[in-house]
């Protein structure tokens, strides 16, 4: 049986015929397209999970600043606050903090796993690890979640884009939220179709979001958008799990997101020429960063 797929519909059919979950389809596909064994493929994903866990831990326990000195420490603040009755619920707040932690680590030149990009690297590890903690999912389950998320990311990469320069922030934190939402649904016992509903709901929420990083750095607004992306993933998953569906089917949502992405003007696609980057404060910060060039650093 050929396990490759190019659309959500094909993926659902494949899972249906073989009686398997999305994660299993993705593992079998990887076996077919690579020269690696199943064991090697799973071991490689376990290494990713390990680095993800380290990056969350580092961001929530160590004090540091980014290279630009624009960020650092806010994730830890939110994580602590989450224990004191936050309005959005302590689990959501913990997950948002964990997502911010990873991107703060990233901005400080720490080690992260791009998922699907470095700028959106917080969302997937945060929701898997935080929800995994409260639901009691072990590492084998979390690795399955990563394969399921990978399948959703693949569909965006094939049929749309996962690059902010091509499709704006929706292609980065949006796709990451969609990947995470689908993984949460599968790990919670949802059917493959529910996974796609969750992914569609998540991306619809931020369709059209532009990429306008201040001074071109992966910090403002990226860090907080990862926090929001975690919450988006969790709520989208909950909607799908209680039986709410996406009126517009997943594949059509992917294609509309791509069309919208291509219509976003270049100023709002990672070039740091529009939006937040073009505000008076944004420009002032960019000028300061440019002055760093002359200085030697040790």
């Amino acid at each position, binding site marked *: 049986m050929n396990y490759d797929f190019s659309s959500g519909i094909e993926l659902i059919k494949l899972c249906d015929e073989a009686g398997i979950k999305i994660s299993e389809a993705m593992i079998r596909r990887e076996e077919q397209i690579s020269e690696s064994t199943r064991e090697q493929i799973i071991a490689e994903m376990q290494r990713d999970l390990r680095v993800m866990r380290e990056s969350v831990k580092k961001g929530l326990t160590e004090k540091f600043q980014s290279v630009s000195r624009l960020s650092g420490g806010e994730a830890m603040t939110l994580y602590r606050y989450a224990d004191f009755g936050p309005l959005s619920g302590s689990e959501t707040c913990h997950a948002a903090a964990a997502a911010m932690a990873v991107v703060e680590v990233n*901005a400080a030149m720490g080690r992260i796993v*791009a998922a699907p990009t*470095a700028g959106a*690297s917080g969302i997937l590890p945060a929701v898997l690890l935080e929800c995994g903690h409260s639901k009691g999912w072990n590492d084998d389950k979390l690795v399955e979640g990563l394969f399921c998320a990978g399948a959703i990311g693949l569909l965006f990469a*094939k049929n749309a884009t996962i*690059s902010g320069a091509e499709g704006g922030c929706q292609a980065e934190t949006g796709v990451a939220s969609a990947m995470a939402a689908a993984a949460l649904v599968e790990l919670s016992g949802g059917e493959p179709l529910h996974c796609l509903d969750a992914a569609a709901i998540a991306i619809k929420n931020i369709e059209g979001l532009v990429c306008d990083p201040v001074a071109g750095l992966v910090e403002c607004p990226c860090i907080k958008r990862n926090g929001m992306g975690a919450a988006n993933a969790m709520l989208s998953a909950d909607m799908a799990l209680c039986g709410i569906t996406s009126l517009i089917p997943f594949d059509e949502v992917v294609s509309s997101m791509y069309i919208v992405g291509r219509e976003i003007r270049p100023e709002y696609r990672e070039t740091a020429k529009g939006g937040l980057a073009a505000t008076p404060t944004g420009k002032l910060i960019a000028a300061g960063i440019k002055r760093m*060039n002359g200085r030697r650093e040790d």
Partner: protein
Amino acid sequence: MENFSVFDIIGPRMTGPSSSHTAGAARLGYIARRIIGDEIERVHFTLYGSFAETGRGHGTDKALIGGVLGFSPDDQRIRSAYKLARDEGVSIEFTYSDEHADHPNTVKIEAVDVNGRETEVVGRSIGGGNILITQINGLDVEVTGEYPTIIIRHQDQPGVISDVARVLSQLGINIANMKVFRRSRGDRNAFMCIESDEPMTPDMKDILMRLCPAIQELMIV
């Protein structure tokens, strides 16, 4: 890249903050080191476009140095690259250029090795941590670094390409991609870039050089 692996989506594991400005820069430095081949004494990086604009904030400088020191993109030693270069006695210089470059994330790497030999490599970071080396010592090339790569400088004449292909097949090396560049017919400095499935060892290099006299220089990248 139509047939994405799951690890193109989840991954790479990398030193932040940017796959293009940090991970890609580290790879550019790393490939340049392999082209230079010998111990490096001093290296001058010229950054263009977005590399020049936002490079320092992205740690592009540290990533380039780290790459030249032989670190992979997920190596955390990249963070202390300036100090480690100093410890190894490699002198480092940066120019942040305002000049226009064909691609926004472009770097020129000019290195002098311990034997005084100069090498100039120009490359670009094309997204997602992927790179393309576009020039070596002034000659246009296309090296991605995704496969074991050999670069051959040769005299342009009939039969050279088939000789090289024949010897490679005898050495058990399967050619994945091959491109030939020359300025004009009979160019003494024509180039071949060969990406292969199997890596070439120094022994194999000697055999290939001996059996194909039209080869003037061979670099294993």
